[in-house]
C-alpha cells in the first residue's frame, strides 16, 4: 500500500531522514519508535505533504501513485490521513462544519455526491459516542479551547468519520492520561481492518500496550535501524534506544 524507498529529507539545509525505507501493507499496524530528534514526525509530515520539507532523494508511493507529485488535499482524498500531535485551533469554524467539508471534499474527489445531512448526522453521532465525546463538541470551534486530551480525541473522531486507507498518527499518546489513552486506543483499534493500514509514531512503548502493532521499527538518526514485532517495543522499554543502536552498529 505504502512504499517509502531510500528517502532523504532536508529541513532548513539539515538532513533529517537519511535513506529511510519502509513498506506498509493493507491490514497492518506499524509503529515507528525512536528517540527525540530521530526524524519520526518528519516522516509522517513528509507523507502528508507539509511545507518546508525538501525531499532530496528517494520516493514515496501510495497504491502505486507517486505521493510526492500530489497536492496535500489530493493525498488526503486518496486516503492518506495524518492525525496531528498538536492540532491547530481554527476560531470561528465549527467542528461539525470542518468534518462535513472534509468528508464531502473527499467524496467529491471520488466522484460521489455529498452525504445527505441526516445520514451524516447519524454517522457523526455514532462516532462521537464511541469516542465518549459530548455532542456540544460539534458546535465548538475546531480545537479552540480544547484540552490536550480533547484535541487528540477529536483527531481520532475525524479518522473514524473520514475512514482513511492509511491512518498516520503522530504521537497521539502525548499528553494523555490513562483514561483518555484507553478511549483513543479503542478508537484506533476500531479502525483496524483488512483494507486499512495504520502507522503509529510514538516515543513511548506505553501506547503499544493498548494498540498492539504488527511491526515495530526503530528509527535512529534518520534511518530505520531495526524492525521487529511487538516484542521489540518491550525490549526498547527495558533497554532503551542506546542498546538498539549498539546492536545495530
Amino acid at each position, binding site marked *: 500500500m505504502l512504499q517509502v524507498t531510500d528517502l532523504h529529507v532536508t529541513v532548513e539545509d539539515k538532513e533529517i531522514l537519511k535513506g529511510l525505507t519502509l513498506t506498509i501493507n493493507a491490514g497492518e499496524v506499524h509503529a515507528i519508535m525512536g528517540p527525540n530528534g530521530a526524524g519520526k514526525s518528519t516522516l509522517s509530515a513528509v507523507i502528508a505533504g507539509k*511545507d518546508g520539507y525538501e525531499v532530496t532523494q528517494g520516493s514515496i508511493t501510495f497504491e502505486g501513485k507517486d505521493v510526492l507529485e500530489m497536492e496535500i*488535499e489530493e493525498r*488526503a482524498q486518496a486516503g492518506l490521513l495524518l492525525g496531528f500531535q498538536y492540532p*491547530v485551533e481554527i*476560531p*470561528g469554524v*465549527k467542528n461539525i462544519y*470542518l468534518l462535513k467539508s*472534509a468528508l464531502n471534499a473527499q467524496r467529491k474527489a471520488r466522484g460521489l455526491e455529498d452525504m445527505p445531512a441526516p445520514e451524516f448526522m447519524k454517522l457523526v453521532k455514532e462516532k462521537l459516542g464511541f469516542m465518549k465525546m459530548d455532542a456540544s463538541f460539534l458546535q465548538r470551534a475546531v480545537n479552540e479551547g480544547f484540552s490536550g486530551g480533547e484535541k487528540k480525541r477529536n483527531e481520532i473522531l475525524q479518522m473514524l468519520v*473520514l475512514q482513511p486507507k492509511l491512518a498516520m498518527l503522530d504521537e497521539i499518546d502525548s499528553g494523555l492520561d490513562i483514561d483518555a489513552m484507553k478511549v483513543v486506543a479503542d478508537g484506533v483499534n476500531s479502525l483496524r481492518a483488512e483494507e486499512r493500514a495504520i502507522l503509529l509514531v510514538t516515543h513511548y512503548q506505553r501506547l503499544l500496550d493498548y494498540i498492539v502493532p504488527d511491526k515495530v521499527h526503530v528509527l535512529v538518526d534518520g534511518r530505520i535501524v531495526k524492525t521487529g514485532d511487538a516484542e521489540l517495543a518491550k525490549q526498547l522499554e527495558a533497554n532503551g534506544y542506546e542498546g538498539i543502536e549498539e546492536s545495530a552498529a
Partner: protein
Amino acid sequence: MATEEMEQLVRREYKDGFVTDIESDTLPPGLDEDTIAFISKKKGEPEWMLEWRLDAYRQWLNMKEPSWAHLDYPPIDYQAISYFSAPKRPEDGPQSLDEVDPKLLETYEKLGIPLHERAALAGVAVDAVFDSVSVTTTFKKELSEAGVIFCSISEAIRDYPELIKQYLGTVVPVADNYFAALNSAVFTDGSFVFVPEGVTCPMELSTYFRINAANTGQFERTLIICENRAQVSYLEGCTAPMRDENQLHAAVVELVALDDAYIKYSTVQNWYPGDENGKGGIYNFVTKRGDCRGARSRISWTQVETGSAITWKYPSCVLRGKDSIGEFYSVAVTNGRQQADTGTKMIHIGEGTRSYIVAKGISAGKSDQSYRGLVKIGPRAKGARNFTQCDSLLIGDKCGAHTFPYQEIGNSTATIEHEATTSKIGEDQLFYCRSRGISEEDAVSMIVNGFCKDVFQELPMEFAVEAEALLNVTLEGAVG
C-alpha cells in the same frame, strides 16, 4: 508557501466585468450651475428643488475635499466627470418587465439576479437602478395597499413634495461634508421609502445599483422614513462592470426613525476594485446616516463591502430619542491594491441610548484597510451604553490593517466597551484543513466565513447566501 506563489494566487479577475451596450443620453463632462439646471429640468423638478441643489453646489465650491482618511489616490478632476446618464427610453419609462430593454435584463442575468424570479419567488419588491434612472419597480401596488411608498427619489420629489421638503437633508445636511454637498447638488436618482405610522412593510425592499456608462459619476440619493411604530428592512446590492477610468460614486443615504420605529438597512457592495496594479476601479465616497429621532427607535446597518478601489464610508446613527438603539455590523474585504477606510459613528444624545458595533475587516494581497469608529456620548445621554468589537484578519504578509477608535465621553454614567483582535490565516491552519482533503480555496473560505459569521447572521437570509458567495469570489486564491 513561497512568496511568488502567494502573489500569483492572490491575483484574480473581476467576475462581473462586462459592459452593456445601451445607448445613453449622457451629458458631456463638466460641472457648473447649468449642469445642475439641466439635471433638475431633465428630472422635471419644481423650482424649489433646483434652488436646494444650487445652494448645495455653492457651498460645495467653498469646501475642501477631506484628507484625513488613511487613503492614497490621485486628485479627482470633478470637471472630467459626466453628471447625467440615463438609458435612452421613452420618457414615461417602462410599466412592466416586458417593456424593459432585454439587454438590461440580460445584464442582471449575468450578475445572477434573475429579477422576475427573485421578485416573484422571494416576494421582494425590486427597484432596479440602472445608471441613473429607475427602470422598473415591482410590487408597487401591494406596497401602496399597505400604505408604503416605495419609489424613485425623482418620483417622490414630483409626487410627495411635502414629505421631501420635510425630511430631505435633515439627517445629512447639504453641507455636511464635501461629498454629501456634491451629491446634494447633482444627485440623479435613488430610492424613497415612506412607511406610515403603525405599518410593518409587508416585504423586504431591495435595490440593485449598477454603474454602466463609461466615465459617468453616480450620485444616488436615498431617503427612508419610518413613522411611529413602523418597520422596514431595506436591501441594497451593487456590482459594476469592468472599466479603465476611475469612477466616482458619492451617495447619500438618510434614514429617519420616529418613536418605536425600526429600520434595518443591509448592503452588499461589489463594485469593480481595479486591476492588480490598482488601475481602474470605483471610488466610493458615501455618506450614510440614520437618525433615531423617536423614543425607543432602532436603526441597524449591516454591510458587506468587497468592492471599490477606494472606500470612504461610515454608516452612522444619531441616537436622539430616549432609549433608542443604533447598530453597525460590517464585513469589509480588501484584496489586490484596494484601500478602505470604513467604520461608523454612534452619536449618543438621548438618555438610555445604546449602540453595538461589530466590525470585521479582512485584508489580502497588497490592500490596506482601516477601521475608523467614533463613539460620542453627549452630556444629556445619561446611562448610555456602547459595545464595540473590532476584528481584523490578515491573509498574506503584504496587506495592512489599522484601527482608529475614537471615543468622546461627555457623561460619567456611560458604559463603553471596546474589544479588538488581529489574526492571520496561518499556514498551519491551511495545512490542517488541506490534510483533511479540503482544497486551499475552500479552506480559506471556510476560515473567512467563520470569521464573518457574527455579521452574516444579521443579514436577511437570501443576502447572507449571496454575501458568502461574494466573499468566496473576492478572496479566490488570496492565500498566504
